[in-house]
């Protein structure tokens, strides 16, 4: 499944660490991970620990499935937006703009980066 330029992500995920690719030339984070920066074509990509905090940019409850699930785009605190799932919550209570946090979902191979609603802040 994994291919070499993305292997560091999956290796970190296996260690329960969430890392993001950042370009040392232009300073921007990008998603999905590439060896060559999609903004400036530099190859000076560095993997940085990420907060795992984000906000729902858009989501949909996929109901035509044996078990309904949520596909979403989450905009991370670091500024990049990733395709993911929202899990472990009341799907009908979700909203665009809602704060979410990363959790790794175990799979047969590397854990998947998915999100769950963040605890409400007082």
């Amino acid at each position, binding site marked *: 499944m994994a291919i070499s330029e993305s292997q560091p992500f999956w290796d970190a995920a296996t260690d329960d660490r969430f890392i993001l690719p950042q370009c040392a030339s232009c300073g921007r984070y990008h998603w*999905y991970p590439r060896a060559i920066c999609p903004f400036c074509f530099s190859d000076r990509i560095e993997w940085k620990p990420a907060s795992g905090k984000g906000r729902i940019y858009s989501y*949909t*409850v996929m*109901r*035509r499935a044996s078990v309904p699930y949520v596909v*979403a785009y989450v905009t991370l605190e670091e500024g*990049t*937006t990733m395709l993911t799932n929202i899990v472990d919550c009341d799907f009908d209570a979700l909203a665009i703009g809602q704060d979410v946090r990363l959790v790794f979902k175990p799979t047969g191979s590397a854990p998947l980066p998915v999100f769950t609603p963040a605890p409400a802040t007082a």
Partner: protein
Amino acid sequence: MSIKGQAFIAGAFEHPTRNAPDTSVAQLHAEVARGALADAGLTKDDVDGYFCAGDAPGGLLSMVDYLNLKVRHLDATETGGSSYLVHVAHAAEAIALGKCNVALITMAGRPRSEGVRTGTVVRDGNPAQPDLQWENPFGTTAVNLYALCAMRHMYEFGTTSEQLAWVRVAASHHAQHNPNAVLRNIVTVEDVVSSPMVSDPLHRLDCCVISDGGGALVVVKPEIAKTLKRPRVKVLGAGETIKGQSGGDVDLTYTGAVRTGPAAFAEAGVTPADIKYASIYDSFTITVLMQLEDLGFCRKGEGGRFVADGNLISGVGSLPVNTDGGGLCNNHPANRGGMTKIIEAVRQLRGEAHPAVQVANCNLALAQGTGGRLGTRSGSATLILERE
């Protein structure tokens, strides 16, 4: 240099089948090729350029050999359902450069017979494709990737399910007159919003049909068009692009038509207000709404109001759209609606649409295609055509 006036669509053919369990995909390609050439009044031996996309089994090598063509120009540009609009533009470019005189474009497929659950199943794709490992594990399918766009559109602009439903209602009003359409029953807004939810906010009736079939076009140089008996449909302008996830700068509020629309209008030298009929790719209702905005038929965010209250119904609204019933009701062969979008635009310009949906004095039409998935990567292609 421009393609404006450099080529004409001389032949167009839509396969009447919607269910072809006993016909091979290659045979469907041959049947539509024959149909379009007969429509033009040309023969197989006149063809010196051939165009096909990802639906063609074996690609150019197999199809040219199977059809036994002797060609000097080839193009297999693959941008999903928008491919065939790109092909017309590329054919016009090739003709303008003298690379060919008679270009044949074919498409066909049978997802219905093959039991493809087009919208709701994760498709494997090419494992070397760089993006799929970041998408498929999350259960991405055609319908939920368009649903993400619809959700964001509703959030940003207040678009409603009832407004989206009007796209389907309009298609159904047109499809009642099309004897070949998969779904000919007229539906109401209430029917659409009360149909089962597939992927929020898209209901079953917000989704296009799954059907077999195909279509073909013959594009020729002006000197040849003038020798033929059919009404002449001139290529005026075109645009093509791919819109993706922008390295993580995701913006689901627009389609690639923000680039291809202005390019095509500039080349054609006309404006959205000049267009009498529009074929707008309708994989889902949201696809139509967003493309109409991006093409400039209304302002960004106003698509919901624009499509409501029958504004897309021929004889009722200000912009007749998809008068064959579109992908929502008529057909969506090979899960690719771009070909039939062009064909209905040609019918309208020739005055050969069904009388109940024919637009009066239809001298200028637009065809718009989307390919792939609007929520991740999608092709966009715009064509502007004129009745000479």
